[in-house]
């Protein structure tokens, strides 16, 4: 079973910024400056209410591998060059948005994936903008 990654600001996934490893002798003067923990959720997510987790299942984009978790902020407006999740032919795809010089399309970074052009009325069904990729190495 996979381990769930709750997307809330109150998650227990916290990494201490500074901590003295040994409790002996004088405490490290740096301990006085420990203010908080690094919270991976706040590091990766801007708007937890509008952020969703999905799973990459293609290698169309450089830097994102099959099996990676992708974090999608649905509240963002996609700009040229953003990695986006879009609805295409009744399912969701992961592509880069091309929005320049009068051309609107979804493209892959690597060859072998056809360009998905905007529909007749110059629209794409963009679901959200990918803001982070999470990959476990071990």
């Amino acid at each position, binding site marked *: 079973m996979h*381990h*769930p990654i709750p997307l809330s600001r109150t998650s227990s996934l916290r990494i201490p910024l500074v901590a003295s490893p040994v409790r002996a002798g004088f405490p490290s003067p740096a301990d006085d400056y420990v203010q908080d923990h690094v919270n991976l959720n706040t590091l990766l997510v801007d708007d937890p209410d*509008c952020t969703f987790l*999905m*799973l990459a*299942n293609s290698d169309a984009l450089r830097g994102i591998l099959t099996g990676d978790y992708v974090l999608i902020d*649905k509240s963002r407006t996609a700009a040229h060059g953003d990695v986006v999740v879009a609805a295409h032919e009744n399912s969701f795809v992961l592509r880069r948005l091309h929005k320049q010089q009068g051309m609107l399309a979804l493209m892959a970074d690597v060859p072998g994936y056809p360009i998905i052009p905007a529909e007749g009325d110059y629209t794409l069904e963009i679901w959200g903008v990918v803001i982070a990729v999470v990959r476990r190495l071990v």
Partner: protein
Amino acid sequence: MSTFALVDGNSFYASCERVFRPDLTGRPIIVLSNNDGCVVARSAEAKALGIPAFLPFYQVQRLCYKHRVAVFSSNYALYGDMSRRMMNVLSRFAPVQEIYSIDECFLDVTGIPDLNSHGHRIRQTVRQGLGLPTCVGMGSSKTLAKLANHVAKKRPEWNGVFEWDWLNPREADRLLAEFTVGEVWGIGRRIAEKLTLMNIHSALDLKQADPRHIKRKFNVVVERTVAELNGVACLALEDVAPAKQQIISSRSFSRLIHDLPSLSASISHHVARAAEKLRAQGCAAGLIGVSIRTNPFRDLGQYHGYTCVPLIHPSADTLELNRAAQAALRAIWQPEFSYHKAGVVLMNIGPNTRQQHDLFSPPPDPKRARLMATIDKLNRDFGSGTIKLGAEGLTEDWQMRQDKKSPCYTTRVDQLIKLG
């Protein structure tokens, strides 16, 4: 003067399903109740097909097939999570919020300039951030905000946002006359029938009724509704929902049940669910009721067994509560009947801290509280039912039928959408 907004999700359950299914854009969707029994939610397209609400599914099955209606079992994990997200987003738009149900909340928007743009900003934010369509109704009382929400929903010319102040008094009255009195918030069917006999048919009639007369004939609640229709706010927002005084868990079986072990497993399951809710609100129950009944619509022997068992110590412990519930079940079970529904109700609910100890029985074991907390966490993190009482699993006969349930896209890592 105060201004209230009522924001609600259009065809909320159906809309939640559609967010994650791009192939369902423009297609009719219906959602069925627990056990796939009745139609509980319909998308606008399904309503347009003439599929009525709350009808047993088998009666509309052919219609659904003919029009390629997407049919879903209810997925409360998904709707609950989308609701939580929507309520959080909506809370950004007002200093005070009252969550009224899974898909609607009141906001206190008093003093906010340009409510028209504010309303449209609310809709736009929820639409873009969560993919959910909403409507916003505003008025100087909660009752008027509710009615304004109906206007926003039913009249496309307002683009999903409506406030009574945008009309002059004569136009407002003309619009109020188009609502039957039964459509007014808080006017139930029985009161509506009685009002009709008094020649009060529309919301406007009720607004213009003599409040003292209404109070004499009914009660102070209906009198307050008259004042609210006249723009006098009598009901404030309740930002903290009171702890539930009763927790009920019950359900019909997918087929009739005859034997005690199956009933007993079902009761254990309901105790576990109710106890989890009880612990979530930090309470303990002093009394547990158990109910079993036959199907009143079947031409078989009819029986409804119900009894309550008090607990020595008010408890939130699933095992303690289940012991009491099983004793109650044995007391009411009659072997000659076929059972259709079973449930439990927790009563005498109070804060878990204020416990009275019995002189002659041992006090509750603190280790058990930790055990319960662990069970709740496991079920929260890994999906409900990950850990359960052995008694729940002895027989699966009574389990829910949910043939058409969608994945828990937002709450289960093993059910995430895969991106091509």
